[in-house]
């Protein structure tokens, strides 16, 4: 049995947050029945929206492709159950905090009839190692798999990008450092075998020889379950790394730094330092698709907070609305005042529970209203924000420059490197909403950059146009001169004919 190892790099700052996890880890994952209606946003991932390939009224089967990926960065969407497409219309989504976005609505027939495995694209042999890595990637591309840790980056594109770099480490992220969330913990306890198998598939697809599974020290059951599986299959390449329970050690770049002691360059990706990071849930989803031909149509999510009657982890079909899930999990309590999709540090507060569960939804946190900390006082430069910043920024200085709208200084002091983890907010004695301010400032910088790019494009267009006009002018002049010269050569009768032709063409106009 391979024991967890502890040799780690260092992570600056971070916070020890109150866990609140035990509320939802008491019982096994519960399956939520297929609801009467499923709502599937066509954008459930980072990148371009997928394009619906079904029409209204059409009957679809479980696992059938209903929207295909479109553009360079996108992921397909599959029907999570059998039924009829009844609408393709705007519906509230969590990505937009409860505002509408295009969704495909399926009225389920309750039969849960699936597409035959033989009809699935790229049907894989039972032993994936016989497949060429490129074919394996093509297969993964069709499974609609995205990062399940919350970021929802299309997995296939991430793998293809990584293939262009020299990757020597696969990191499976089972850290789950945010408070309340425990879906990865439960998944590791219950599906350790599938996770490890997913890791082996990924290692084969990218020809990587080292895999670290990083798990926070507050999840001993998960560590034990994975260690048991690793002991059984005896794969020396995969090692469990126990990391300290400090938020935000589960951030992608932070995990790379913590586990391999490599710094992901500013504006770069983990692949720049030879690492590929995948969430443990993503690894299980890859197993389900490659081995069992089951595309990503369900996921495990944590239902928790003082606003729900019985906190629990559930496996629900993608597209089940939050209200359906909560109802099936015991309903709300009287303190349900705030609905957060994700964790309490980086989650999105949404305005309605009509939003559906999407591939990225790792937590549904219903809580009493967060009390307002009162009006913000001026910064007293105590520096506690800098002490907890995992990127080693100086938030107190950044805040100053953000207030002054000094773009150069904001860039120089690393605003674009801010990961918006929220640690600085939590230690600020002046109660300044630093993360929110930085989010705005980032948007502003992006806007300025876009403006500049637009101006540059406009200038280019203008210059190209004047060049073209000038060129056409000279061409016309030379042509005219040539015509004149040839007409002169041809004599007066020819000139008269030309003039006559000109006259008729004018009349035509």
């Amino acid at each position, binding site marked *: 049995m391979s024991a967890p190892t502890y040799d780690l790099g260092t992570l*600056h700052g971070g916070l020890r*947050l109150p866990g609140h996890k035990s509320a939802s880890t008491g019982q096994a994952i519960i399956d939520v029945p297929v609801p009467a209606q499923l709502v599937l946003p066509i954008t459930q991932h980072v990148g371009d929206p997928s394009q619906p390939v079904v029409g209204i009224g059409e009957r679809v089967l479980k696992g059938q492709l209903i929207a295909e990926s479109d553009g360079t960065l996108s992921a397909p969407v599959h029907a999570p159950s059998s039924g009829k497409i009844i609408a393709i219309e705007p519906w509230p989504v969590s990505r937009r905090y*409860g505002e509408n976005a295009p969704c495909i609505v399926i009225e389920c027939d309750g039969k849960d009839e699936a597409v035959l495995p033989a009809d699935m694209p790229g049907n894989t042999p039972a032993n994936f190692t016989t497949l060429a890595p490129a074919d394996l990637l093509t297969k993964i591309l069709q499974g609609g798999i995205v990062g399940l840790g919350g970021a929802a980056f299309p997995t296939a594109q991430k793998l293809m990008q990584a293939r262009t770099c020299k990757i020597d480490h696969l990191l499976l992220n089972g850290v789950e450092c945010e408070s309340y969330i425990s879906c990865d913990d439960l998944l590791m306890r219950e599906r350790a075998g599938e996770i490890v198998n997913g890791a082996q598939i990924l290692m084969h697809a990218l020809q990587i020889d080292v895999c670290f599974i990083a798990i926070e020290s507050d999840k001993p059951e998960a560590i034990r379950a994975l260690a048991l599986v690793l002991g059984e299959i005896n794969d020396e390449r995969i090692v469990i790394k126990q990391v300290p329970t400090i938020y935000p050690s589960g951030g992608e*770049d932070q995990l790379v730094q913590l586990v391999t002691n490599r*710094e*992901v360059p*500013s504006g*770069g990706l983990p692949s720049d330092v030879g690492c590929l990071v995948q969430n443990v849930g993503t690894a299980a989803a890859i197993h389900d698709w490659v081995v069992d031909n089951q595309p990503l149509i369900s996921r495990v999510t944590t239902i928790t907070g003082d606003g729900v009657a019985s906190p629990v982890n559930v496996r629900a079909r993608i597209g089940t609305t939050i209200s359906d899930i909560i109802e099936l999990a015991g309903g*709300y309590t009287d303190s*349900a*005042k*705030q*609905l*957060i999709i994700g964790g*309490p*540090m*980086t*989650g*999105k*507060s*949404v*305005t*309605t*529970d009509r939003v559906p569960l999407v591939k990225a939804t790792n937590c549904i946190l219903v*809580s009493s209203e*967060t*009390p*307002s*900390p009162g*009006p913000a*006082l*001026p*910064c*007293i*430069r*105590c*520096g*506690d924000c*800098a*002490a907890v910043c*995992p*990127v*080693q*920024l*100086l938030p*107190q*200085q950044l805040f100053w420059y953000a207030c002054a709208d000094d773009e150069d200084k904001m860039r120089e*002091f690393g605003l674009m*490197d801010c990961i918006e983890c*929220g640690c600085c*907010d*939590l230690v*600020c*004695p*002046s*109660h300044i*909403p630093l*993360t*929110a301010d930085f*989010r705005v400032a980032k948007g502003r910088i992006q806007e300025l950059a876009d403006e500049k790019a637009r101006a540059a494009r406009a200038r280019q267009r203008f210059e190209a146009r004047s060049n073209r006009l000038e060129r056409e002018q000279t061409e016309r002049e030379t042509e005219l001169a040539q015509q004149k010269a040839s007409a002169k050569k041809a004599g007066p009768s020819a000139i008269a004919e030309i003039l006559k032709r000109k006259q008729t063409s004018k009349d035509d106009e």
Partner: protein
Amino acid sequence: MEFKRREAPYLIPQVSVSSMMLQVLAALVPAAIVHVWFFGPGFILNLLVAAVFAAGGETVMLGLRNRKSEAGLTDYSVLVTAALFAFALPSLTPWWVTATGALFAVIVAKHLYGGLGFNIFNPAMAGYVVILIAFPMHLNLWIAPRMGDLDYQHLTVLQTLQYTLTGSLPDGILFDAISRATPLDVMKSGLNNARTFAEIRAIPVMGDFGGRGWEWIGNFLAFGGFWLLIKKIIRWQIPVGVGLGLLVPATIMYMVEPGSHASPGFHLFSGATILCAFFIATDPVSAATSPKGRLIYGIGIGFLIYCIRRWGSYADGVAFAVLLMNMAVPTIDYLTRPHIIGHDLSADSGEADG
């Protein structure tokens, strides 16, 4: 069901400026009690005068600047300024001297620079320097500490109050009967008159390390300071920096020529060294902000204190040292930016790490 929307994060800070300031005030209480024990009730009167005028100045300035006055007063920062200022004063100080310093601290040093968070100079020290220059005579009058074995005349509460209100002592009491030169003054004039350190140490006003009374105030200030360190209200860099900056040159000089230089222990436990290291230099607003910057800032203050004490014309140099280093803060901060994770090390103009 509909819900309210707000921005992440949804956990709220458990700390506040007012609780920080209250803890600083609490950490000063033991030393204040010791102060009263050794030097009489004058400290409390000074504290009251300073607090009333500082709070009054704050209210007026917030009004003039169209800020809500309750927010400005409930952060208690003005009380911390008043308390630190009161610690710098001799226990016998006429009220107008205290009031001048307190008003200058709050109106000029704090609010004319933009109020809480924006002042470049430490308000308490700026106020102290103003009255040190404007009323030098009043600030050199320290009454003798309670010493037990030596019989000095001590003033009652009413007598102290009379002095505070009128600036003159009750009939029949002479200054010479109650006041003594401070240990730092004694040390400075003694060394300047070619007496050895050992000789000076034998003078009754000297205690075990520093001056009698003062060293005990120092002990209790250090006690409060360690408590603030444990509570993470202050960080170790500035106190350690001040200690290093003062003690390293003091030790070297003392080892080279023990006769004509005060010992490092004397420097540490005399004057306002401990007050400065834990309470004054650690004022976050006017101090450097990066961890390494704070160490440098502290070392600078400690070193300047030593220079002023040894070669300057003032017996103690805390206020000047702090104000001088306040001016250096923007430069220190710029040069000690921590390495941002993921940034090219060679491209950073700052240093390798924080």
